[in-house]
């Protein structure tokens, strides 16, 4: 070995001869090395193209499927509130000596009576009047429009009994099956036995469409209606939206102050010892605990132990708060860590106490960071589904919750419920539409975060 070294050593010193040989060796390998380099680069580009491609495919699929659901087949007909069908007592009035409860009961009785009327007949007459010469049975006529439309006519009448005997132009939602047929979501060449609508109903729908009485109009009810099982075409996101809103409020009200306070304590006040080290590991671990475990915690502690109500946005908000807390703490801590020590020393040097230094000088500098982290944490919580399933938020709720203690669902859970609906043709589009709304909300939140951060940072 030593001999070899000597030889080589001499070769190193030989100058031109050795160096020519050396250069030849290097040059011999160059082309292979450069093609390896190109190949490696190509892998990198391929990976990025793949990642960007996934984003593109995902968004275009969702948009492609979901956007059509924002317009829905709507039928405009003249409805005659026929006194022969609508035979009801006068609307009750509160009389002297009647308690509020009794008045309410009378009202309900009257409404029940009104509900029992044959509103279907009113709907049928209105449609037949629009297409007078068609041969069709009642069932087929009624299958063209959504079943909830008769209740809408009833509600119009309850709100204004003076409509009796009058004719009003009403926009009626077509049924989900009609919508599928007209949009071509169902194969038009399928035999009758596999079609959801009878041949007569299909012909009627096509004809109304041709005559312009049926048209695709913006489905505003997706935003204003609650979920519905019996009338899928009228199902909307309002209940889920309000449920999510309540949960976000709970998260903001609880996670931000608690998160910021504990970050301030851990970063600025806590002594560096084993305990704080343990807390640090604990918080970092919590940030990576699967969300479903938080759901189990909620089910065992909030629901089973504290007996809080099932399906309540308050409970959902509490669970999501615990999930968001680590995010807020970690982000606030790193924002605090980024504040230069000179700022603290300057404040302390002027005689400010530790607490004054932190709250008057250090914390305000970190507001942009905390704000961004909060919004990102809230956006994450907004999209979370699994833990909510375990605290009963997947229940069917046909009401907009009026308080955070009412039964409710949430946007992502609504997506989960809709994707499982049996009427796949219709609900695939509906689910995608709900996803668009959810992603739109999340993107808006993130955009706000970016906007605020740049604004606040510039001001500084």
């Amino acid at each position: 070995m030593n001999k070899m070294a000597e030889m080589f050593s001499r070769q190193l010193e030989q100058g031109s001869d050795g160096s020519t040989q050396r250069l030849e060796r290097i040059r011999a390998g160059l082309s292979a090395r450069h093609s390896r380099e190109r190949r490696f680069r190509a892998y990198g580009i391929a990976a990025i193209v793949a990642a960007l491609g996934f984003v593109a495919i995902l968004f275009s699929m969702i948009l492609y499927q979901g956007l059509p659901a924002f317009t829905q087949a709507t039928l405009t007909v003249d409805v005659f509130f026929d006194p022969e069908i609508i035979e009801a007592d006068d609307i009750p009035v509160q009389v002297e000596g009647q308690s509020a409860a009794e008045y309410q009961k009378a009202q309900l009785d009257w409404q029940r009576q009104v509900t029992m009327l044959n509103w279907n007949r009113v709907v049928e007459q209105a449609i037949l009047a629009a297409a007078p010469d068609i041969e069709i049975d009642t069932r087929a006529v009624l299958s063209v429009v959504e079943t909830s439309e008769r209740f809408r006519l009833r509600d119009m009448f309850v709100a204004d009994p003076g409509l009796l005997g009058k004719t009003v132009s009403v926009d009626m939602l077509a049924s989900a099956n009609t919508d599928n047929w007209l949009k071509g979501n169902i194969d038009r060449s399928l035999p009758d036995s596999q079609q959801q609508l009878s041949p007569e109903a299909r012909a009627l729908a096509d004809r109304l469409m041709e005559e312009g009485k049926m048209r695709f109009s913006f489905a505003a009810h997706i935003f204003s209606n609650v979920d519905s099982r019996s009338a899928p075409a009228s199902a909307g996101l309002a209940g889920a939206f309000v449920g999510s809103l309540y949960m976000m409020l709970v998260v903001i009200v609880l996670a931000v102050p608690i998160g910021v306070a504990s970050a301030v304590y851990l970063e600025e006040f806590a002594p560096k010892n084993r305990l704080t080290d343990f807390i640090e590991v604990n918080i970092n671990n919590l940030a990576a605990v699967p969300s479903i475990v938080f759901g189990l915690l909620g089910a065992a502690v909030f629901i089973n132990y504290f007996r809080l109500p099932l399906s309540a946005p308050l409970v959902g908000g509490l669970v999501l708060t615990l999930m968001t807390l680590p995010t807020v703490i970690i982000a606030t801590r790193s924002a605090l860590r980024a504040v230069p020590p000179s700022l603290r020393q300057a404040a302390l040097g002027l005689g400010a106490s530790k607490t004054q230094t932190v709250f008057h000088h250090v914390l305000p500098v970190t507001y942009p960071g905390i704000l961004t982290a909060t919004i990102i944490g809230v956006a994450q919580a907004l999209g979370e589904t699994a833990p909510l399933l375990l605290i009963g938020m997947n229940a069917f709720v046909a009401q907009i919750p009026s308080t955070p203690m009412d039964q409710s669902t949430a946007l992502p859970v609504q997506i989960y419920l809709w994707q499982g609906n049996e009427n796949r043709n219709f609900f695939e589009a509906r689910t995608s539409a709900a996803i668009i709304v959810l992603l739109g909300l999340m993107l808006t939140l993130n955009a706000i975060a970016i906007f605020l951060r740049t604004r606040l940072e510039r001001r500084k």
Partner: protein
Amino acid sequence: MHMPAEKIVAQSDLYSMESPTVRTPDENPRPVRVSARNVNVFYGTKQALFDVSIDVPEKAVTAFIGPSGCGKSTFLRCLNRMNDTIEGCRVTGAIALDGSDIYDQALDVVELRARVGMVFQKPNPFPKSIYENVSYGPRIHGLARSRAELDAIVEASLQKAGLWNEVKDRLSEPGTGLSGGQQQRLCIARAIAVSPEVILMDEPCSALDPIATARIEELIDELKQNYTIVIVTHSMQQAARVSQRTAFFHLGILVEEGPTDLIFTSPGEKRTQDYITGRFG
């Protein structure tokens, strides 16, 4: 913007150039290994070097001195195109190694860097064993045909770097476990292992204590018998101790270059005199 390489001719043309630089030739000029003509360097829109022209003689130590930010390191990094790795850096003018332009499209930068090695300011051994550190260059360039050949290269390089006796029993230990001075000698061994023709050293002792510095300086003195060495240094004493020629940079301009003893005893420029006497810098 590049001048064709043929335009760069013998050493003599430097002294007929119209240039603000004060130049003094050697009494016995050595052959030129690296020559630069009208090199300008820009970082984005900011110009860092202005029309630098210089010849680097073979098998001797050339020192670049000057206050920090004067462009001496920037110029050094031009000589093996390390500036290519800096975003927004642009070089104009011509630099030739043995008469061929190193900024020529046809030149392979990989080959150039195998011929012009570099030692950095802070010792930067790879997080690998000492053996792997030294064998890294020969391996990637395919210089060794066998394991024995590789072993020989490693041993010879470590010996030339004066490190062999200290590490021969622990070649498989990580290079990061050595002391600062040893790490820097390891980096020199790593550079020697590909047997470059020119070695660039960017303030190689600035992170070391005086004893380690002295060892590196001795090493440089030995190495100059076989290699052309360019060293950037902050310390004028170091330049005086190790170099044969010295170039003084100030604000991106090459102010003066000449034999080291002359520069330090009777500089031809007032700014050089002010700098070496400690008026600024």
